[in-house]
């Protein structure tokens, strides 16, 4: 079977090279995105974002190719009347599907659904990245609340996409069995058996030049958008610590970012300094008052970051600790205790692992993994 000689062996080219590259690229990357999205720990999540960006690039190309590609790549070649879709499904149930060179009507619906769902997942993913994590091109555009809503949509769509992919694979397998033509091999070689069902119109050929032109235009618009997003003020406003706070509260440990506790909890912590987690940390009253004023006016309530929203709901009667908050414990439950032991200051030394801790952002992209990767079993002489 060769593509060069379609007439002689009864095969005709159907899927052009770009469509095939798109198909298998998309199949591989979407699988990877699903696996990483569901399974990898937060500090590796940047891989998922990179995969998503590659999928976005492929999808943009595919949409343009849907207008300027060769015949069977064009959206116009797989728009069917709903009645034809029902007819086709019936013919499958009767084990005699009508042959189609391009997508059959049921396949066309599936392909469209897959592209729409992947597109929506990309959109919700970028809103989640910007709103919740204050990262990526939309960091300054979306609020935490929109990020969280987009996150729920993103997760729901992911389950939906798994279902769609399974049905898609099942459909291909059934059609291949019933029609006697291996559709998977056809998506590799690009050729299909000549059937009577060729379209009534002469096959349109690809317009690579126009495609290149349109893609350049889109690329230009994206570049302009990126430059704009890079020139925005930081998504998490920079706040230098009050000098008195820094001097008095940075002597024994990291200078905790004020967004990490709600104002009421800061106030309570500041009134119990004579018994501060098992130590006397008392201060001259006027300096304590200045610190209390600064901390409570910059508490969790005044920030739109992930830790501020999740720690800002701390039980006001509980201990004024970040590291006993349920959210904090859940986030760090993957980390073996030996890692925290290996760090000077233990769990409370946020800045030992979070390189953006001083900004209060705590992005998953700024977690120093060397503690995890370099973890050695504790040497015997280290224990007294």
């Amino acid at each position: 079977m060769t593509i060069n000689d379609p007439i002689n062996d009864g095969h005709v080219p159907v899927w052009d090279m770009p469509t095939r590259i798109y198909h298998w690229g998309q199949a591989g990357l979407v699988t990877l995105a699903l696996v990483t999205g569901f399974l990898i720990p937060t500090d590796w999540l940047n891989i998922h974002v990179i995969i998503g960006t590659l999928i976005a690039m492929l999808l943009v190309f595919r949409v343009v190719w849907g207008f300027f590609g060769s015949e069977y790549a064009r959206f116009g070649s797989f728009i069917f009347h709903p009645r034809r879709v029902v007819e086709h499904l019936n013919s499958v149930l009767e084990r005699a599907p009508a042959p189609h060179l391009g997508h059959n009507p049921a396949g066309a619906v599936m392909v469209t659904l897959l592209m729409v769902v992947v597109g929506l997942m990309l959109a919700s993913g970028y809103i989640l990245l910007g709103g919740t994590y204050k990262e990526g091109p939309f960091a300054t555009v979306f609020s935490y609340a929109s990020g969280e809503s987009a996150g729920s949509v993103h997760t729901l769509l992911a389950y939906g996409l798994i279902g769609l992919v399974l049905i898609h694979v099942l459909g291909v397998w059934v059609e291949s069995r019933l029609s006697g033509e291996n559709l998977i091999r056809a998506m590799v070689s690009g050729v299909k058996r000549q059937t009577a069902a060729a379209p009534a119109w002469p096959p349109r050929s690809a317009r690579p030049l126009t495609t290149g032109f349109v893609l350049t235009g889109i690329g230009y618009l994206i570049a302009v958008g990126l430059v704009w997003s890079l020139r925005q003020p930081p998504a998490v406003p920079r706040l230098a610590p009050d000098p008195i706070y820094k001097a008095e509260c940075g002597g024994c440990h990291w200078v905790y970012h004020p967004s990490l506790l709600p104002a009421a909890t800061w106030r309570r912590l500041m009134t119990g300094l004579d018994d501060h987690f098992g130590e006397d940390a008392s201060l001259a009253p006027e300096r304590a008052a200045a610190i209390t004023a600064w901390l409570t006016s910059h508490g969790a309530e005044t920030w739109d970051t992930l830790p501020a929203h999740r720690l800002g709901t701390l039980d006001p009667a509980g201990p004024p600790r970040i590291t006993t908050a349920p959210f904090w414990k859940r986030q760090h439950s993957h980390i073996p205790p030996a890692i925290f032991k290996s760090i000077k200051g233990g769990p409370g030394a946020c800045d030992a692992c979070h390189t953006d801790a001083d900004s209060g952002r705590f992005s998953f992209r700024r977690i120093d993994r060397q503690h995890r990767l370099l973890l050695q079993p504790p040497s015997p002489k280290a224990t007294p």
Partner: protein
Amino acid sequence: MKQVTFLALTTCLMAFAVSDLRAAEANPARDAIMAGLGAEAKASDPAFAGFSPQRGQALYGAKSTVGKPDTPSCTTCHTADPTQMGQTRAGKEIDAMAVSKTPNRFTDPEKVAKWFGRNCNSVLGRPCTAAEKGDFLTYLIGR
């Protein structure tokens, strides 16, 4: 006011005479702190006969069961050897307490008062007396 300063200065000279201060460089701010402590000690105990580095060393290494359980001794954070770097319970390094290693130690009266206030309460469960403070500083100035 003048009389108090005069009294402080004379007590300071007395303190110098009986304690081993030769190892450390003279520093006016630190001298003033020592003088103040000397005057205070004299005022509360007329029999006060100067600070002792030996008593200071004993206080530095003493184990206490009275204070907060996590901080039984000054050495918990300042390490047994005052010429070494210490570490807080929350992991921050503390410069060596020995003046020979950290020359600007005990030169800010507010800082000294604040940390004596905190650490004596944490370790001993009570404020330190002026004599204890003076002994402690004398020991570290000589190290």
